[in-house]
């Protein structure tokens, strides 16, 4: 075991002498973090809702690229062949390499977390749970990295294989693009990727109910990790002269695919894939208790003037707003016509008290913005027009001001399919945030602040 410990220590030490490894292992995760910070700069608590994605991307990079690249390049140069001449068993080298990689991705994760806290993120709800979830995520993805190392005959093959796993996981696996904004088929496919469970488990510990909310994700990650580590050890190649095509024991890959498939099938069977979306839809049609009181009537113009009117640019990514001379395409025009036609009878727009109704109507602008649909910037003027047609201007200003002052009250709608606009943000927090920004933008226009 002394040999295993020495190899582990030296592997970590040598990692810190490799400039390229440091760039890939630490600089790239930080660049991701800064990119998310800038992209979601208007969120009330910076990065808090994105730690699941950010930490998963870091582990993916370290485990699916860093680990196999390092292993395959050393194998190509004959380093592993030299190790094989020693009496240390194969599993000891595999364990040492995997643990070294875990320590490396853990340090990168801590660096990310530290920087996120430095820019204003609040502490995760369940720090210890986050550590456990992170460990499970790292275990699953390192297992995957070991399998890539056994499959790839050379470093370019690692890059190709890594991309084949990395990109789908990012785009349709729920890692970089939120699941709720994906079509149904992609959501169902994502159930077969570990990335989805990685994000779920980590995010549950940052903003959710902790490990209790990851009762499915953690065993799923553990199963994927165990299968990967077994296959990685059984198919381990010491020598670059041993090509994978000529290697015996390829059947050890079956547990890997079986684990992915089992997790996906179980998720489908337990209706977990659509459960989350269904929950969001339920929230969408939920009706807030109707209050007969109208406290917003007590608001004055002074209250309106005291609002913080710092909002994102109308031409930006967050809360865009089409200028009057910005003409939509014919397709978008048809969508807008449909919304205009349906809006007066749209049920959420008629349910609840005035504040809740306006809140729901704001969601018609907020949801497409959250998922960056082409129609996003054209919808706010349509919604504002409908609101102006429905409420007297002074009342509308007060209702909107009330919403701005109480952004977390009531409920939000995350599904506007009834208006002919497909997709949902998948996160009520985002919808609330965008609703808040559009409420401010509407007040700016209604009070003529945009002309000053």
């Amino acid at each position, binding site marked *: 075991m002394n*040999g295993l*410990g*020495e190899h582990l220590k030296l592997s970590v030490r040598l990692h810190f*002498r490799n400039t390229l490894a440091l760039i890939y292992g630490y600089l790239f995760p930080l660049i991701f973090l800064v990119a998310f910070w800038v992209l979601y700069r208007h969120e009330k608590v910076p990065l808090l809702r994105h730690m699941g994605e950010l930490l998963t991307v870091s582990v993916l990079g370290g485990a699916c690229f860093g680990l196999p690249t390092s292993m395959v390049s050393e194998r190509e*140069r*004959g380093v592993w062949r030299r190790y094989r*001449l*020693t*009496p240390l068993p194969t599993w000891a080298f595999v364990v040492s390499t995997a643990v070294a990689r875990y320590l490396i991705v853990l340090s990168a994760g801590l660096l990310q977390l530290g920087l996120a806290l430095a820019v204003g993120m609040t502490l995760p709800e369940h720090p210890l749970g986050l550590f456990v979830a992170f460990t499970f995520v790292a275990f699953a993805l390192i297992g995957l990295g070991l399998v890539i190392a056994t499959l790839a005959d050379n470093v370019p093959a690692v890059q190709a294989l890594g991309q084949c796993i990395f990109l789908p996981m990012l785009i349709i696996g729920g890692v970089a693009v939120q699941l709720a904004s994906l079509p149904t088929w992609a959501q169902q496919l994502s159930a077969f990727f570990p990335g989805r469970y990685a994000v779920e488990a980590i995010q549950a510990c940052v903003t959710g109910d902790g490990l209790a909310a990851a009762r499915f994700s953690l065993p799923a990650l553990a199963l994927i990790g165990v299968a990967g580590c077994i296959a990685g050890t059984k198919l381990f190649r010491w*020598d670059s002269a041993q090509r994978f095509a000529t290697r015996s024991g390829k059947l050890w890959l079956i547990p890997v695919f079986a684990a992915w498939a089992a997790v996906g099938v179980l998720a489908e069977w337990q209706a977990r894939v659509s459960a989350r979306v269904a929950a969001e839809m339920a929230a969408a049609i939920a009706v807030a208790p109707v209050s007969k009181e109208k406290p917003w009537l007590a608001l004055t113009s002074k209250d309106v003037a005291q609002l913080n009117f710092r909002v994102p640019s109308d031409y930006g990514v967050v809360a865009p707003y089409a200028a009057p001379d910005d003409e939509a395409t014919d397709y978008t025009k048809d969508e807008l016509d449909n919304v205009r036609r349906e809006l007066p009878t749209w049920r959420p727009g008629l349910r609840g008290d005035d504040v809740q109704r306006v809140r729901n109507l704001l969601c018609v602008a907020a949801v497409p913005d959250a998922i960056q649909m082409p129609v996003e910037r054209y919808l706010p003027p349509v919604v504002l027009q409908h609101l102006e047609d429905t409420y007297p201007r002074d009342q509308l200003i007060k209702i909107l001001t009330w919403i701005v002052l109480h952004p977390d009250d009531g409920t939000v709608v995350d599904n506007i399919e009834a208006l002919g606009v497909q997709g949902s943000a998948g996160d009520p927090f985002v919808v609330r945030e965008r609703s808040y920004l559009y409420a401010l933008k509407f007040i700016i226009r209604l009070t003529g602040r945009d002309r000053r």
Partner: protein
Amino acid sequence: MPDNVVVRDLRKRYGGTEAVRGVSFAVPAGEIFGLLGPNGAGKTTTLECLLGLREPDGGHLEVCGVDARRDPRTAKRKLGVALQSTALPDKITPREALGLFGAFYPEHVAADGLLERFALTAKADAPFDSLSGGQKQRLALALAFVHAPEVVVLDEPTTGLDPQARRELHDEILRIKRDGKTVLLTTHDLAEAEQLCDRIAIIDRGRIVATGTPAELVARAQGKQSVSLVTDRPLAAALWAGVTGGAEMSCDGATVSFRTADANASVAAVTALLAEHRVELVELHVRRATLEEIFLGLTRSGATATEAAP
């Protein structure tokens, strides 16, 4: 002396090609044993099977009394190995490498002593990728000694070294022998084998074609001497064949060489032939056959396995 290495009827096949066909040899303690052969002869495969890098199809492998096929981990503890090209992580230092490899064994030698013995103290903390070829090779040797093994296997250890580094390495190998270790050496260099090895096995096309001390192998060619001569103008090869017998003869323009069992008669025949065709003899050398000529003769002709007389 007990045999520290025993290879018996070793067989290894790659697809349809039988790379090793029943190789057998034994090396007693305190001996330097050379495995010689042209590229593709099977010596590397033989070595790799012994070291546990390849799984043989058949045969018995033994290191210091340990069955290397049944218990490779114990066998590896007895073996110190320096491969032809030493591969280590680029940024590892010699001191770290010795520490790391030492930790792989239950008992190991202090790194400082090995650094000094192999003249690496000045480079002890330099990254591996900054070492010269000779320094890397010395580090490979030091790694082979990190656990004080009973058998040292050196796979073409002097390939790519300059003459100075080569001589230093030869001295080190002889010192290993003086320390009572068994050395199994592969080389292409016949002069090196002749200088270092107590015994040599010549391997060709997967079989051992000759085994013995360098002197014994040379003695095998006893009675056969090597004749080479240069004339002022070339003669037809067919004319030379008449006096040399044709076998083991090479004719390149005005330069001719051949081997003969009766040097006196051959030289007389040569001078008669030259006089007859009015050709002047410019140079004439007669000497005993070298190990290289024996090696080439054995590996060219596909000779059957023979054991030199003890």
